[in-house]
């Protein structure tokens, strides 16, 4: 579904992405992990066309995304830190995105209702707390039934109840055969959600496998333990 072929990106002296080749398919729910500044967000932004790679190609559903923007109607994106125009109200933002997406398909309003957003549509974005902004981002990402979900630190800043609602929503999306890409620092959070792992370091993919394989290989029961085991082995 999404294929990256040898993509590289350099920001000044920092090699953010170094020759990354990946193939991501339907029904996969992948945790994108790695230390700070390893290129996770750059990879995500490259797939979204927000960052243009210096070299390499990104193929979405068999088509190169270069110069295209329509493929983004199949992607729901939840940014790490949602930044919204301060003077716009929640209602206006949702309205604007609906207009741009121009979709005739029924909207997925589960999160809209669960997060009780209808009760605060008139609130201006600048008055909202970080958690509420995350709720808006999550709602927008799921609203248009996209085939692909890209979630950058989805549960950071959410209260436990909202976080649980979002997790259930992600699992439901996985069951329905969507491709989901999640970055997170909290491996324990992802334990029951993901079925694949991509580990990045210094702009390179160090590991890409399913969770089953990973656990079998390292002989550990949880993903976090497996990863730690793997890192230890490498240092030795």
């Amino acid at each position, binding site marked *: 579904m999404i294929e990256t072929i040898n993509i590289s990106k350099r*920001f000044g002296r920092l090699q953010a992405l170094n020759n990354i080749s990946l193939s991501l398919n339907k029904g996969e729910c992948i945790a994108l992990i790695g230390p700070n500044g390893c290129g996770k967000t750059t990879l995500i*932004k490259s797939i*979204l*066309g*927000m*960052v*243009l790679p210096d070299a390499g190609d990104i193929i979405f559903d068999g088509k190169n995304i270069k110069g295209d*923007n*329509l*493929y*983004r*109607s199949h*992607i729901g*994106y939840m*940014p790490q830190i949602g*930044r*919204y*125009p*301060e*003077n*716009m109200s929640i209602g*206006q*933002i949702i309205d*604007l*995105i609906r*207009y*741009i*997406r121009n979709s005739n398909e029924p909207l997925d309003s589960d999160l809209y209702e669960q997060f009780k957003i209808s009760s605060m549509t008139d609130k201006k974005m600048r008055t909202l707390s970080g958690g509420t902004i995350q709720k808006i981002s999550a709602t927008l990402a799921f609203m248009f039934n996209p085939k692909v979900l890209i979630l950058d630190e989805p549960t950071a800043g959410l209260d436990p109840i909202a976080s649980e609602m979002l997790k259930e929503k992600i699992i439901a999306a996985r069951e329905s055969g969507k491709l989901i890409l999640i970055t997170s620092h909290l491996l324990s959070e992802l334990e029951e959600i993901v079925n694949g792992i991509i580990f990045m370091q210094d702009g390179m993919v160090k590991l890409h496998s399913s969770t089953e394989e990973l656990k079998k290989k390292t002989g550990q029961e949880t993903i976090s333990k497996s990863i730690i085991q793997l890192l230890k082995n490498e240092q030795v």
Partner: protein
Amino acid sequence: MRILKYVSLDILKNKIVIAYAVMLALFSWSAFGLEDNASKGLLTVLNIILLTVPLMSVLFATIYVYNSNEFIELLVSHPIKRSIIWRALFAGLSLSFVAAFILGAGIPILLFADFETALMMIIASSFLSVIFVAIAFLSNIITRDKAKGIGISILLWLYFALLFDGLVLFLFFQFADYPIEKFVVLLSALSPVDLCRILILLRLDVSAMFGYTGAVFKDYFGTDGGLILSFLLLSLWIIIPYMISIIKFRKRDL
């Protein structure tokens, strides 16, 4: 179109553009009211316009585009062309400033000056507004740093509104013994502010004050061909900075 609506509404809600229109109205009405003949009043208004219109357009537009970063970020992950976002911002800012000028200064000018002169003044000033909005877009694309961007905008304004005149005057005095009139005509095309000034002054028939140079100006800019050429040059002053900015914006990492 919907994006343009949001941008325009947001600019109007900002109230600065409204204050700008009110200020222009106050200046123009009082200038026409205080001077005993319309021509003198027009000259006063012209001087005010040539100073304030570029300054307001370039400063407000620069800051506005920097503050629109969030708006741009919100939209780029959705299926929409980047050029549409940029164009909506540009159109929203340009329209707001042209509208503010026409409502503020345009009405008194139309009432007090003869129709053709008034029309020339309104068109030239509208061009000036849009030109400096385009220059603001250029500063935005040159640097990501807001303070630097605003600095570049102010420097460009200083250059076009004040320094350029000084430069031309300096050349005039230094080379007074040589026939450099034609060269000065050429030079004035390099500053949109001067181009507008000449276009309007020629309509006011005060070009006689410039002596021989005024006559040369009249020869070049007073004709129909000169007029068309001048507006062509003014259009280039919009198109070139804007095109550079949009080409760069399409390739920018967000």
